[in-house]
């Protein structure tokens, strides 16, 4: 991937745990973050990378839509195949459990929204090995369930209850879709940092699309940055022959 001079000066995320579980409110951008994290790790580490789509609550805008592009980068996608790829069915592939228990590289779990979406983790709870996983909350202050510190704390406790796992960190992914500005990003990070202080959960990184990142001066962001390449595009945002989503 090409990096501009400006970007090189941003700190990049450092994640060493074997299992990275990405959780958050509905529409906070979990899937986009998960897919980009997989790409970033595939490009910057030598370890095998796998991504599992655990979103069984909502069959739209799931990370599995990026399967073909991820596989081109050598990333293993653990998703149902054939017709079931599209099914509105809670399909938990048996491979997911064994991957949580002992995947050789880094496994990214893209989980469904809210405590409802995170409940699936509870059925897999005995596969998680304490100390070998991260559970990261994706925070978008422009979404109602994480709009401020109290609502975010509430979501954290609801998700921890339903998943029976404990959070280990935060991701700031504040955006307003195509209306995102540099202020959206900076204000989001500010709230995320506040939440970090209130919960003692480290802010692991902030995710920003490349076009906005170009407008931000490195000094404005003291947090590690994951630059986002949009994978989960709306049909009218796609260019011909890119982002093919056939399973």
């Amino acid at each position, binding site marked *: 991937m090409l990096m501009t001079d400006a970007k090189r000066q941003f700190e990049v995320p450092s994640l060493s745990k074997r299992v990275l579980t990405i959780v958050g409110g509905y529409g906070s951008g979990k899937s986009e973050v998960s897919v980009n994290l997989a790409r970033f790790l595939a490009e910057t580490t030598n370890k095998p990378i796998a991504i599992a789509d655990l979103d069984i609550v909502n069959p739209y805008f799931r990370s599995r839509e990026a399967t073909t592009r991820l596989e081109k980068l050598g990333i293993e996608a653990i998703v149902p195949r*054939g*017709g*079931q*790829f*599209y*099914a509105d069915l809670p399909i938990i592939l048996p491979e997911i459990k064994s991957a949580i228990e002992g995947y050789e590289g880094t496994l990214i779990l893209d989980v469904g929204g809210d405590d409802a979406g995170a409940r699936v983790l509870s059925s897999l709870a005995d596969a998680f090995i304490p100390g070998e996983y991260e559970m990261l909350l994706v925070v978008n202050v422009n979404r109602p369930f994480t709009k401020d510190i109290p609502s975010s704390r509430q979501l954290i406790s609801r998700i921890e209850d339903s998943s029976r796992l404990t959070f280990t960190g935060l991701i700031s992914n504040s955006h307003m879709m195509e209306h995102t500005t540099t202020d959206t990003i900076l204000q989001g990070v500010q709230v995320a940092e506040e939440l970090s202080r209130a919960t003692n959960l480290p802010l692991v990184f902030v995710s920003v699309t490349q076009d906005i990142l170009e407008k931000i001066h490195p000094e404005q962001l003291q947090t590690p940055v994951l630059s986002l390449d949009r994978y989960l595009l709306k049909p009218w945002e796609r260019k011909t022959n890119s982002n093919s989503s*056939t399973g």
Partner: protein
Amino acid sequence: MAKILMKGNEAIAEAAVKAGAQGYFCYPITPQSEVAEYMSRRMPELGRVFLQGESEVAVGNMLFGAASTGLRVFTTSSSPGISLMQEAISYMAGAQLPAVIVNIMRGGPGLGGILPAQSDYFQAVKGGGHGDYRLLVLAPSTVQEAVDLMMLSFHLADKYRNPVMMIGDGMIGQMMEAVEFPDEYKEDPLPPKDWDLTGAKGRSPRVVKSLFLDPVKLEDNSWLLHEKYERMKREEVRYELYKVSAKNKILIIAYGTMARICQTAIDELEQEGISVGLFRPISLFPFPEKEIKKEASKKNIQTVLTVEMSTAQMMEDVERAVLGAKPMAFFGHTGGIVPTP
């Protein structure tokens, strides 16, 4: 066979029997309950199936199950009951199951009223239920024609593996006219069945379904259905002309019993020296678009008048056919007020 006097509803029932219907499922609703009453005696007499379901929702789905046997089955109902059957009708169209559905229409929307109307034109010809599908729709104007079209409906349902709907208003159902049934009912040969569920003996199992998870396969199925509907448009257009001539100043488009009322009006106008012709669509889907266009485009026609017992539903199809070639006019009543000549 000699002519006998029959109520439309009874005639429709007997026509289905003659066409070889092996099963009839129903739920009572005015003004078509005579079909159910007639069949409750007639079908057991013949060792065939009669069943009154608990609702039109169930009846539509019973029809789905029964049609999966490959045997000829049908149901009759009236406007609100037909609405409740739309779920099953859509599934049947999706799964390509043949069945005949008769709608003896009344006035709507909602509970409306029970008197004759043609208020379900859109519902019948534009799909009616959810999804991308069409029904073959036929509209008789006399009790004899109801008999003939009923028999044809079973044939077309099998020919196209598609539900066929026959629509008439309360007049068709309640009116008595002399009818004649063919002594022996013969029809063109049909393609062999390779989809009916008969048990997976000596073959791999079959599944009758409309679910296609893979969007590519779903799209394939939708285009397959589309091709079928296009074939219907080429092969199944039916209509009748009445007093259409080069003297006509006005061309009336009307279907069902409404067309007969127009015939009488045309006769009366003729006495007064006004020449009017009638174009009566018999198949409402496929709609005789090209044929209407041809008649309407003739030089002598000054106005195309659509007459319906609904608020200008068919007129939209007439407009589409005429494509602005001639000025349009509409006359109609609905809600049970039957226009008179």
